[in-house]
């Protein structure tokens, strides 16, 4: 923003002001779409509810008290588990895909990236229904299994269908950050690793994974956090028998007509998300420091 050649203080103050003015839309968007709704939810989570679905205002800790019921802990635990599993699966698959794309000729890389996005131009719900057709009876998977004489009727509803569909839904947000950090890696490092006798496994474990760590961390966060809010997939592909915390929040807000309790659960999920983001950030910083130290030690060693 600031022009490095500006000589006088008076001139520098003008771009500063324009800087603030240009920030306005972004700040307004964040205030209106993030801070205001969050404040409303935070406030509602302490409100008193009436059985008719009203929000009586006031102040109570009852809503948070109710969340100590083991029923909620169980659903939260299951959701965190599913989110962690999804983040892990997405990141591993995303790493493989990103590595493949990053090693294609420069001309084909953008084409492959566009191919990754194309399915996502279709509505999310339509794609989820497509999975029902693909995995259901009469679908290609069942037909294929029957060709091999395996007796199967339908993969829907099942835990596997939920896991697969979650992977499908979040894979692109895993691929992109990993690809971004993968692209920055000097390709000659791979040749160097090969020259020094590193096998496939060592090349990845000691060169590519550490160097794409920021991308891997973003991938984990970008898949873990939104999975906690998913509610359509478990219903359509999992039969709705094991609700995720997103399903529970929807139920609390609609069928149970209990906005304050729903708001309280939303706040708990929000805090868990923030805690996991902070945790990942700390881990990453620690890893970064260790890498830096290792690099320094390495230099000293060779010197």
């Amino acid at each position, binding site marked *: 923003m600031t022009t490095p050649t500006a000589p006088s203080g008076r001139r520098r103050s003008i771009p*500063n002001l324009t800087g603030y003015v240009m920030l*306005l839309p972004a700040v307004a968007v964040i205030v209106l779409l993030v801070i205001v709704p969050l404040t409303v939810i935070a406030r509602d989570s302490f409100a008193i509810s009436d059985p008719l*679905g009203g929000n009586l205002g006031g102040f109570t800790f009852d809503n948070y008290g109710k969340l100590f019921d083991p*029923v909620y802990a169980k659903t939260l635990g299951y959701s965190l588990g599913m989110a962690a599993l999804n983040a892990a699966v997405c990141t591993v698959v995303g790493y493989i895909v990103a590595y493949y794309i990053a090693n294609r000729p420069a001309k084909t890389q953008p084409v492959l990236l566009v191919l990754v996005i194309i399915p996502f131009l279709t509505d999310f719900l339509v794609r989820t229904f497509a999975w029902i057709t693909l995995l259901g*009876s009469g679908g290609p998977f069942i037909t294929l299994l029957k060709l091999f004489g395996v007796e199967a009727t339908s993969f829907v509803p099942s835990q596997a269908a939920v896991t697969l569909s979650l992977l499908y839904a979040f894979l692109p947000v895993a691929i992109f950050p990993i690809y971004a950090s993968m692209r920055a890696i000097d390709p000659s490092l791979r040749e160097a690793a090969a020259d020094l006798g590193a096998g496939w496994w060592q090349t990845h474990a000691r060169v590519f994974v550490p160097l794409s760590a920021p991308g891997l961390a973003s991938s984990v966060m970008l898949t873990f956090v939104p999975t906690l809010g998913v509610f359509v997939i478990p219903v359509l592909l999992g*039969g709705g*028998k094991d609700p995720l915390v997103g399903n529970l929040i929807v139920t609390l807000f609609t069928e*149970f007509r209990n906005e304050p309790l729903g708001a309280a659960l939303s706040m708990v999920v929000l805090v868990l998300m923030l805690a996991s983001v902070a945790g990942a950030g700390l881990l990453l910083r620690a890893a970064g420091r260790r890498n830096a130290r290792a690099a320094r030690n390495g230099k000293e060693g060779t010197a």
Partner: protein
Amino acid sequence: MNKKFLALGAVALASATVLAGCSASGDASSTSASGSKTLSIYAWAGEIPDSVIQGFEDETGITVTVDTFDSNETMISKLAAGNSGYDVVEPSQYAVQLMVDRDLIATIDQSKLEGFDNLAEKFVDPSFDPGNEHSIPWAWGTTGILYNEACTGAPVTGWSDMWNPAYTGKVYMLDNMLSAYIAGLQVNGLSATTTDQADIEKATDSLLEQKSILAGYNSSNYADLIGAGDACIAEAYSGTTSATAVEANPDVHYIIPEEGGTLWTDSFSIVKDTKNEDAAYQWLNYTLRPEVAALVTDDASLASTNEAALPLVADQSQVENPAIYAPADSLTNSEFIVDPGDALAFFQDGWTRVRAS
């Protein structure tokens, strides 16, 4: 420091202007333009055919706008927020009770109604709205069982079949608390409208026990699953999706369970703070006409509450389809689901336990 302060102030001011702009435009849309007459209706998605609206506009010269909702709770919260701008709403039976309690809908002046006699007996003076003081029923339906006989191998007669281990992994329940409890209560011989804690707990135990048999809870595509034979039995709502499944496959049947079964009905009510009361009464009277009421069956595949309309339905196979018009003799024990009031807490506790188990 000062400059920063100034910038923050500017941000706050800009945000305030945007907010003010929102509320100003909200007000503008809720007041009808003077001169031309308008009627604003808030109704269930798919329950008022275009043909009905078109006919009303042509005859009265009133411009109708229809917004739709897909849950009573959404509709109630929008009206409770105030200044909704709607004149006529279409609550379900228990929602009528809720809205009367919250003073959201007006008392209907019965002397202004024409054609009220056309309503079928069970919708006159109903349990949820004595004397039809606040609601004129428009469409109705049932909660029952949709099953595929090729899959079950035998006719299904009641809720108890949904607890039969022979169908393990082939049974779906509706993903809706009150609907699930209809089955849970009636399978125990209890009333679906009970508010007794012990009754509700007994139903909770039954629903917990049923979970090992279930394929899942599903309110969206159960009719497809039954039609394809991926599921054998599903708790189901009557209406278009169930009716189509019954029509398309001779093995698919819709029944009202022998333990009872329940009715729902969606009614027209006048919003308390309406500015177009005359137009609202014109709408009530227009929709009470038999030839208009018949359109809800012909164009929306729903059952009409209007007895005189039945012979006027063009496609009589719809009147004979049990997934649209449940046979009268199957409804002798059926009840309207009413608002559980304070007992809602017992249902919620139980349902949370059932879903999370």
